[in-house]
């Protein structure tokens, strides 16, 4: 029972981070039908910038409370990531809006290679440790342990997601985003500034990515210039699992993927009689993903009928 609960907690924490990154993918996809391949790298940049600020602050003012230092890191990382997201949209995607479908995919790959290498040139190839600024308190709930960092991640991620849903459902910007997602042309005929909406989408997605990047590096205790690749891949899989273009789908997909991974890691050995170890957890995750898509080709919450025109 306690193993089950432990994996549940781990899965939910990891899943809520995946969900935050997946939201960035799915919002851009919903509006532009573009896989923003560089999104994972924006997450990495968020983690790296925040770590640089936190490291500098921890050196300059060692007495400062951890939450304040972390807040300062986020306060720098979020604007940097938003600026990066806007810049990428402007330079690499906007000129290609009427180009063949795969052309923006290739620029996205190019941009992600560029960001990776810029990060490598600035921060080097080594793993960067997350400074121990946060109190590492552990709580025990029915035999499973949960740390302060995990609780903070869960609460923060839930809060952000609820806010995002409110923004999309209730505000003028949200309505403009939904209209643009349905039809860019009709939305612009109704007086929606489509370019601004698309830019706002990239800005919001990048801000979420920055927060998620800081969460991941706090959770694992390190950051690396290559961390965005796998994280982005998983988050994108999560978005597809939930039904790409669908906000609730991205959240559901992210949480599910986190749970699948952690339960896969915990139970795969028992399930296969010890034949497959926990190093097959990614196989398990991809296997579930493929099975779901085979039976529901548009993802769990996606619109039936496949691609939207």
């Amino acid at each position: 029972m306690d193993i089950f609960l432990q994996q549940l907690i781990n899965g939910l924490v990891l899943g809520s981070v995946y969900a935050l990154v997946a939201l960035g993918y799915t919002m851009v996809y919903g509006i532009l039908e573009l896989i923003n391949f560089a999104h994972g790298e924006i997450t990495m940049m968020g983690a790296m910038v925040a770590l640089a600020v936190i490291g500098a602050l921890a050196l300059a003012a060692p007495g400062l409370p951890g939450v304040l230092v972390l807040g300062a890191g986020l306060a720098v990382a979020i604007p940097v990531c938003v600026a990066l997201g806007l810049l990428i949209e402007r330079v690499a995607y906007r000129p290609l809006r009427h180009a063949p479908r795969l052309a923006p995919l290739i620029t996205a790959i190019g941009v992600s290679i560029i960001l990776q290498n810029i990060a490598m040139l600035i921060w080097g190839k080594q793993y960067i440790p997350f400074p121990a600024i946060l109190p590492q308190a552990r709580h025990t709930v029915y035999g499973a342990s949960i740390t302060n960092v995990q609780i903070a991640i869960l609460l923060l991620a839930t809060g952000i997601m609820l806010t995002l849903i409110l923004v999309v459902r209730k505000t003028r910007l949200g309505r403009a985003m939904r209209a643009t997602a349905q039809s860019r042309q009709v939305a612009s005929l109704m007086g929606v500034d489509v370019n601004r909406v698309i830019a706002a989408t990239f800005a919001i997605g990048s801000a979420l990515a920055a927060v998620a990047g800081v969460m991941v590096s706090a959770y694992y205790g390190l950051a690396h210039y290559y961390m965005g690749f796998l994280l982005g891949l998983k988050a994108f899989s999560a978005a597809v699992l939930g039904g790409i273009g669908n906000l609730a789908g991205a959240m559901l997909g992210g949480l599910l993927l986190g749970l699948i991974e952690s339960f896969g890691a915990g139970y795969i050995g028992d399930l296969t009689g010890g034949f497959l170890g926990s190093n097959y957890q990614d196989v398990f995750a991809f296997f579930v993903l493929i099975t779901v898509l085979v039976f529901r080709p548009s993802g769990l919450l996606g619109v039936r009928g496949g691609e939207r025109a």
Partner: protein
Amino acid sequence: MPSLCPTPPRWLAFSLLAAGLAALPFLVDAGLGRSWVRLLDLALLYAILALGLNIVVGYAGLLDLGYVAFYALGAYVYAWLSSPHFGLHLPFWAVLPLGASLAALFGVLLGAPTLRLRGDYLAIVTLGFGEIIRIFLNNLNAPVNITNGPQGINLIDPVRLGSFDLSQPHELLGYTFTSIHLTYYLFLLFTLGVIFISMRLEDSRIGRAWVAIREDEVAAAATGINTRNLKLLAFAMGATFGGLAGGLFASFQGFISPESFNLMESIMILCMIVLGGMGHIPGVIFGAVVLTLLPEALRYTGDWQRELFGRIYIDPADLRMLLFGLALVAVMLYRPAGLLPSTRRRREFADAQE
């Protein structure tokens, strides 16, 4: 009736091209050094891979991000059947078709469940298949050692045709043909074969049906095209070429490990065909050659820095991938349909611009 200024006859153009291709490794060897001949071999290998993926993505319009899995299968089949790993040393001409057929079989196995998926959903499922295969290759060293895990398989037999060993230098008419020169000719032969098959496919009923599926699957099905079989055929044909390239790669390197078959490799092959010009054979080959040679050429940035600034500011090994990414973005921005697009795509793009 002979005209006053005749265009050169086809046979002359062909023999000039043939002579050029035959002399190329020696010219490169003399001009740029031996390592570039090796790169030439690799460029041909990537041309085979890119042409294979081009069938799936370029002709049939199925976005496949797990293509490298077939490459890996071909390579591992070759390694299993002709290396000390299992103590088997079957001849090259027996192993290569086996690897290619196994890859084709997996192509169909992968294709079958994905027939209903479209666009980016297909992309993520193929990506998943690719990763699953790679993880299995990485971990199948226990309980039974099949793939030797992350260490990979070593001492793979080089190509041997009868008593003719490609790994040894041979003398012919006063010229020394070293192993990499001979490999070049072998790969060139296979590349030409793949080009020939691709060209014949392009103009066939099958090729036209693929294009119809790419443009509009529902309409294609309505005109009586068996979309299921043709999509499976596209996967199988693409996978065959991938498996073939894998076998050649294993014999060429003598060593393979799962590291060579990661997702980035699939993405690179996709970049080659999109950058070169999707669905257009010369474009795809051009893309493969450019993207294979570019990262190596960018190693010279160290020399440029020294000439410009008198010292090296950034290690060229670190700088070259950055420039590579910039080049990808720049090419796509200025030539969104690829460097050498087919006339059809150029027209489509011109329509879309209006």
